């Protein structure tokens, strides 16, 4: 049995949500759009999963009730940037096991100034006790130091990271859903205000309000364009936060993930990797094997990413489209599915295979969760 994505939906990303906007409304809008694209109604859905940081006091069941869903499978995921892969892993197994036939996965957040401050101050106990009082407001400083380590180990410069940000901004120009679409020059990138050295403004994602959703079914077999799920792998707490953070849990996902998919990292025509910072794009491409171990990362960025020879984060990624809280985890999955289903509009590429990664949940020094999904275009 193969499981496929047959519909994607978003609630438009915005830096400034209308007063009175609720997380549940934003998520529901993405769900409705995904169901419409799949040609389904809420009555067809029997499985639902959601990830959100700002749904309190509601939970998945409250959302299901308010959307009128009658379900035989329900889950809530709390792993932020890795939540899409986690929900996808469970959903694929649930459909295979017969627990549900039509599953909607959704993620979204209302991420205005106060919500963002609240989220980063009380992210987990370690943050509350040992980071927020430094003071540290959010993970920028941690990834600044991780970036410094990566620059030393891989011989990368700020210009190399700039090429990633600039390439993604060029993709964003053709994504009406991205919050930043105007071209970015190397000069602008390098001279942007420092956030946490060596990171400048364009190394950091703009928090936005928004949501993403996909609809999953088993073999529709009716000629519907779909994104077939070839494999899903997850890794949690791979190194106990005792490493340098340059290697992610994807390192352990890669071999079984490619093996199950039946293709290799050189076969993908699109990589949607979790881009909370350009350094993490590099780390994840390397862990997946898409950036081969015997290639030089700086050359790879110049030769393959900047030229679009290998399309990476064709929506503009979170760096240009925005990070809608936990929806950031689903952003790459929706973009990859759209490219494979031929619904990516002006930025549509010719592609058969895509790899999607999720990364997130900083425990103390870097993210502890990673997910890898390999998808294939089918009808």
């Amino acid at each position, binding site marked *: 049995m193969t499981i496929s994505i047959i519909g994607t939906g978003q609630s438009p990303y915005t830096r400034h949500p209308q007063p009175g906007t609720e997380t549940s409304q934003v998520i529901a809008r993405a769900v409705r759009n995904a169901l419409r694209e799949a040609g389904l109604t809420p009555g067809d859905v029997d499985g639902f999963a959601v990830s959100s940081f700002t749904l309190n006091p509601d939970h998945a069941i409250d959302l299901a009730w308010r959307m009128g869903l009658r379900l035989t499978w329900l889950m809530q995921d709390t792993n932020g940037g890795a939540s899409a892969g986690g929900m996808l892993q469970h959903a694929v197994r649930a459909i295979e096991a017969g627990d549900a036939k039509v599953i909607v996965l959704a993620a979204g957040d209302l991420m205005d100034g106060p919500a963002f401050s609240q989220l980063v101050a009380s992210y987990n106990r370690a943050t509350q006790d040992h980071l927020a009082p430094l*003071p540290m407001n959010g993970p920028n*400083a941690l990834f600044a*130091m991780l970036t410094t380590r990566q620059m030393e180990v891989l011989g990368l410069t700020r210009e190399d990271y700039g090429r990633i940000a600039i390439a993604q901004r060029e993709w964003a120009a053709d994504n009406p859903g991205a919050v930043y679409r105007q071209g970015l020059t190397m000069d602008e990138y390098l001279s942007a205000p420092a956030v946490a050295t060596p990171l400048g403004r364009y190394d950091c994602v703009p928090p936005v309000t928004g949501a993403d959703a996909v609809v999953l079914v088993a073999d529709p077999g009716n000629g519907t364009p779909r994104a077939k799920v070839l494999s899903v792998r997850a890794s949690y707490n791979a190194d106990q936060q005792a490493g340098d953070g340059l290697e992610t849990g994807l390192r352990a996902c890669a071999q079984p993930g490619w093996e199950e998919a039946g293709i290799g990292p050189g076969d993908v025509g699109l990589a949607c990797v979790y881009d909370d910072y350009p350094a993490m794009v590099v780390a994840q491409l390397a862990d997946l094997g898409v950036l081969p171990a015997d290639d030089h990362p700086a050359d790879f960025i110049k030769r393959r990413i900047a030229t679009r020879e290998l399309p990476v984060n064709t929506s503009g990624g979170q760096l240009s489209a925005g990070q809608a809280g936990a929806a950031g985890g689903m952003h790459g999955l929706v973009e990859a599915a759209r490219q494979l289903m031929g619904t990516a509009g002006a930025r549509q590429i010719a592609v058969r295979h895509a790899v999607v990664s999720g990364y997130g949940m900083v425990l103390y020094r870097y993210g502890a969760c990673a997910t890898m999904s390999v998808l294939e275009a089918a009808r």
Partner: protein
Amino acid sequence: MSAVVQECRNCRSLLFPARLFCPVCGEDSFSTVAAEDGTVEQTTTLSDGTVLATLGINGGLRLIARLTGSAPEPGQRVPLTNDPVAGSGANAYIPIPPNLNEDQS
């Protein structure tokens, strides 16, 4: 000046933040020990001038700290403290909750 970290009573691994089971040996019996100083590995300067650092301490443990006094360069050793106002000399502040402080006194 020192900062408290967790030590596994069984295998003597140093841990921070505190764990429930030791990730090395799986035991769940811990004590706290005082770490005197750490080596600056990386620093980052925030837009308001705050300098944060990753410090390595003996045993391979890494801590996130705020540096005060003249900001030391990577490779330098700095004294650790759990006191946010430990004085103007060069030191590295490692926050811990107040109740943990009391347990140590």
